[in-house]
């Protein structure tokens, strides 16, 4: 159970060295947020700035999001999922492998703030975190310790690849993966009637504002112009029409298929707490079942939608 302060100092030490050696022009990591239970991306360019780099149980945003198209040498503080995203971006020509240095942090999962707020409903004014196993939240007249295991994000609960195996270095020992996502809930959903499933998904996205925070927080969504912003022809209406909204989520799910590393950045970013990853999980299940592929697990694998096997199965095609 490493203390966060140990991880912090190791990250800072590595970052300082990388900047000093010229191995990186910028180190992208996390710094403390301005309100409890938040972190903010930090771009350290000078060794002195490295002191602000931290590790946290709230390092939820996937910093690989900042890589595509970035010129120059860059070091990235990355969890397992983030590192896999970065690997995917290398495969997809978004950054040169030689320009990338991954400071891998073996992760123990990140906290879902909503679960904390559900456990402690009083206004939280302060957060104390010293280890990656538990946190203490404080407010007027209370101090509550919460076990991280009880408030992990959904994707972290089923993350089998918490250690960024392809990182250039690891901060601390490898961490064991959780039970892999067995898609049990998705499979259970598939056992329901089509009407129930349709109702489920429509209800899932009924609050969607079409703000596209999920897309913008996603390291896969680096298209210069997203299909939702396309105007000739316009794929999607701009109103909050439920079918347009559903179409956005379906097509995003499709676009992420075979590429998603289940980092959960989309769900973290969603301001109305939609489980947007549900669409990706359906496609990921298909990808795994059909093509036995998981994104970001090696530097040279071909994403499933860039290739085919002549004997790919598709019995539903008559």
């Amino acid at each position: 159970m490493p203390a966060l302060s140990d991880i912090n100092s190791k990250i800072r030490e590595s970052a300082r060295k990388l900047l000093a050696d010229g191995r990186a022009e910028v180190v992208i990591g996390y710094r403390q947020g301005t309100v409890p239970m938040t972190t903010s991306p930090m771009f350290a360019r000078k060794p002195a700035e490295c002191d602000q780099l931290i590790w946290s149980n709230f390092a939820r945003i996937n910093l690989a999001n900042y890589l595509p198209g970035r010129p120059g040498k860059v070091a990235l503080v990355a969890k397992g999922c983030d590192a896999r995203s970065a690997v995917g971006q290398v495969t997809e020509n978004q950054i040169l492998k030689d320009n990338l240095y991954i400071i891998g942090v073996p992760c123990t999962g990140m906290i879902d703030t909503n679960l904390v707020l559900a456990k402690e409903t009083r206004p939280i004014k302060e957060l104390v975190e010293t280890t990656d196993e538990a946190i203490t939240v404080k407010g007027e007249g209370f101090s509550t310790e919460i076990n991280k295991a009880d408030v992990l994000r959904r994707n972290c609960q089923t993350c089998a690849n918490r250690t960024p195996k392809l990182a250039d270095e690891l901060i601390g020992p490898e961490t064991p993966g959780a039970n892999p996502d067995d898609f049990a809930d998705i499979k259970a959903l598939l056992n329901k009637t089509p009407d129930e499933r349709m109702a489920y998904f429509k209800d899932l996205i009924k609050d969607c504002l079409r703000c596209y925070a999920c897309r913008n927080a996603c390291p896969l969504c680096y298209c210069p112009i997203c299909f939702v912003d396309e105007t000739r022809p316009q794929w999607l209406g701009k109103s909050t029409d439920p079918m347009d909204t559903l179409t956005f989520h379906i097509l995003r799910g499709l676009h992420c298929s075979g590429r998603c590393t289940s980092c959960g950045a989309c769900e973290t970013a969603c301001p109305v707490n939609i489980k947007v990853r549900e669409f990706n999980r359906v496609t990921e299940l298909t990808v795994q079942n059909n093509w036995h592929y998981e994104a970001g697990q090696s530097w040279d694998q071909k994403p499933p939608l860039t290739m085919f096997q002549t004997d790919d199965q598709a019995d539903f095609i008559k």
Partner: protein
Amino acid sequence: MASHNVVGAVLVAGGGVAGMQAALDLANAGYYVYMVEKSLAIGGRMSQLDKTFPTNDCSMCIISPKLVEVGRHINVELLTLTDILSINGTEGNFTVTVRKNPRYIDMSKCIACGECTKKCPSKVSNNYNENLDNRKAIYVQYAQAVPLKYGIDAEKCLKLTKGKCGSCKKVCPADAVNYDDKPEEATFKVGSVILAPGFAPYKPSDFETYRYSDSKDVITALEFERYLGATGPTMGEVVRPSDGHHPTKMAFLQCVGSRDINRADNGYCSSVCCMYAIKEALIAKEHSGGKLDVSIFYMDIRTFGKDFERYYEKAKAAGIKFIRSRVHTVRPEPKNGVKIGYVGDGGVASEDYFDLAVLSHGLVITPDTKALSENLGIQTDHYNFAKTSTFAPVALSRPGFYGCGVYTGPKDIPSSVMEASAAAAAATSKLTPARSTLTKVINVPAPVDVTGEPPRVGVFVCRCGINIASVVDVEKVVEFAKTLPFVEYAAVTMFACSQDSQEKIVSLIKEYRLNRIVVSACSPRTHEPLFQETLAAAGLNKYLYEMANIRNHDSWVHANNPVEATRKAMDMTEMAVAKAALLVPLKENVIDVDPTALVIGGGVAGLNAALTLSSQGFKSVIVEKEQRSGGNANRIHSTTKGEDVAKYLESLKNKVLDDPKITLVLGSEVDKVEGYVGNFATTLTTGETVKHGVTIIATGAKEHKPTEYLYGQNNKVVTQLEFDEMIKSDDDAVRNSKTFVFVQCVGSREPERMYCSKVCCGHTAHTAVELKKKNPGARIFVLYRDMRTYAQKEDLYKEARDLGVIFVRYTLENKPKFSEADGKIKVEILDPVSGLRLLINPDMAILAAAIVSGRETELAMKYKVPLDEDGWFFEAHQKLRPVDFATDGMFLAGIAHYPKPMDEVIAQAQAAAARAVTVLTQPKMTVGGIVAEINQAKCSGCGVCVAVCPFSAISLDEKGKSVVNEAMCKGCGNCASSCRSDAPSLRGFTNAGLFAQIASAL
């Protein structure tokens, strides 16, 4: 011969797949082609096939684009129902006299609506379906036939035979029927002649043993093929003919009329039957949902071609039983089915019941073809196949005459196609001065620029006589069309495709300043090019055209529902208008073609390719990595026909050295490659850069180094090539040896190399015969798994047995055991016939080592061409494009493609050259039209489009954004559908256009 006498036209006799390929290669290389076909339509035997091995491609699907291309080619004159009467003259200048037999249909009027057939009362056995069902006396040969024109079977027509009926003339809406049609003679001049008359299936009628004549449930393989075919008598349902039930157990009997001099007089192997039987067995099993039990009775399984061995393995894995036995008795059962009697391994006699027996008949030369050969003075072999030599595999005995396809020996489709291209090259090698003297070009006015003009759509709704108008209310469609946005003009036409309608459309375009045209008529697949020409003639860019198929997709299929059919026609017209309004003129750009070829590999293939190109007037550069040219042929003693390879090779090398158009660079390889079709720049390891328009890869292959049978331990154990070298040098070891053991399939047909090396059996049989002839006392054993002396090479196998060569079969599980004592080799083998263990003490053992690919991964990547899993270069299409790569301007030849004997290597080299000539012959190439383009503002550079492009037409530029090479793009649109941000768009099929269609469909 004085060049001014040379005629720039070629006669191609036979409209099968070989003839079509030859015609297209000739026409695309600047020669006018007369294609003479006896029947109503081209397509030949291949049009009768359901699927093709080993890819199970749909046969009709893959030839129909070729049919259409031949049918529409401005420089191919199609003479159907035509017989050749005589050909006089000499090479370069022949006079051909033909008889055009009456069709009784005016082809310029017939619109192929089929009304005549519906009314014709005379039923005739349908030879397209192997007489398994009936057609009418007025008919098209098959639905996709080219030319798609009806014809009358004069022998069966009531009007022509008895003067009665005449209903076809009455119903014909186009007044195309002419009962007074008469045969006509015609003469024309050509410079050379290609004969591709094809074959007939051997008819087992008088083959009593197999009871074909008197048992309904004994059928031929081609009949079975028709049963399997979707357009066949049962529309693809596998039935037992006696009662129409689905068979549960069936048998294929191989070598019916092949490898048989006993009853059939056909000593040769027909080369294709093993594969087609496996194919038919697999497809039949598929059709039955796997429930069908299939046995194949065979003597040797001859799956020697590319991917054939895997196909065989796949069949075994699918549960198809292979029984090595020649069936001695077929006994029809009282009601249905037959009992088949045979003797299996170990001499055990068995009898089995089958619902259906299919006779895998051989390929034979028809009496007509035999007569043609005699008439034209073409020498044939004792099987009536035209004679050729290994070194000039498509040249016939009479100068100026060339042959391809089964005419020169039994062979499969890709070999026929290769030979056809080779024949096109050979047939024009002396006609170069007359190139492009007789060919026509279409001159169209430069299109007016309509960019920026608002769309002004003209809609023409075709009545097609009554074909459309009897079902669809065409007036209503027109009135509706007039209400659609941008429609400036809409009208009904009687036959939109008729000459007068075309002229009217041209004048209306001008009168109404129409800048988009929609024709609601028939299928764009058949008629789009015609209307595009009309647009071009009116000065409109031909891509400003859209078609609504209200006949094939509407009136013909909804005849019982005129209301809905009319509504559908309106919707379809609306969809076409919606798309048309968004069409933009597409530019076709012209790029220069560097008229030089780079030939990679200086073996027999490479040298022949370069010489063929030179004979066509094109320069080439040959790169050979060794210090000498000739490749593996340097080591070969003689061909299976007994020709001296060394002598041939010497003359070949000298011709190359003397040829001013050929530069031979020895000791060099390809270093760097840039460019694309027409404009390659290849830098060699010598540092020099070659600019070339096409590339021919002929890098060869090598002999496998055996790791068994004491090879490398005992110097009396040698490979086939080493043995050839010993024979060449008259080695004492060969002369002094008394006992020879040949071991076949050393390293071939094994799990790590699941292919047949194709050349070994023929070569071994030939070598054994030679040895025996020189030294009749020599004891020769050939240890084999299946003897694969295909085609006429079967004669060698027979001769070897007659001379006393002993052939002993072994299996992969029971390989011969080699041991050594006191320097003597001891070979132990189990004879499966007697069940006894044989011991041989050979003085020499010759191993038929596999041919292994060079696995030229780097070269393949440099030119963006693929390799298959065995490392052979992978052609664009295994059946119809055997020497092309999918990437334009790239061709392949020789054993870099797959092992093959020298005659086939040379044919393939000539073919590659012929295909290359179709590119090199045009000083400029037109590119563009319906191709993809990239909006770089939307491109993230992720490379999905690059990965999914089947033609390597997309690459990332220096900014990391995708860019399309229009010269290589074929317009499939894979890129446009795979990109997440829609950076690529396919011209002519843009997202906006297709969205507009979807919107108007609903």
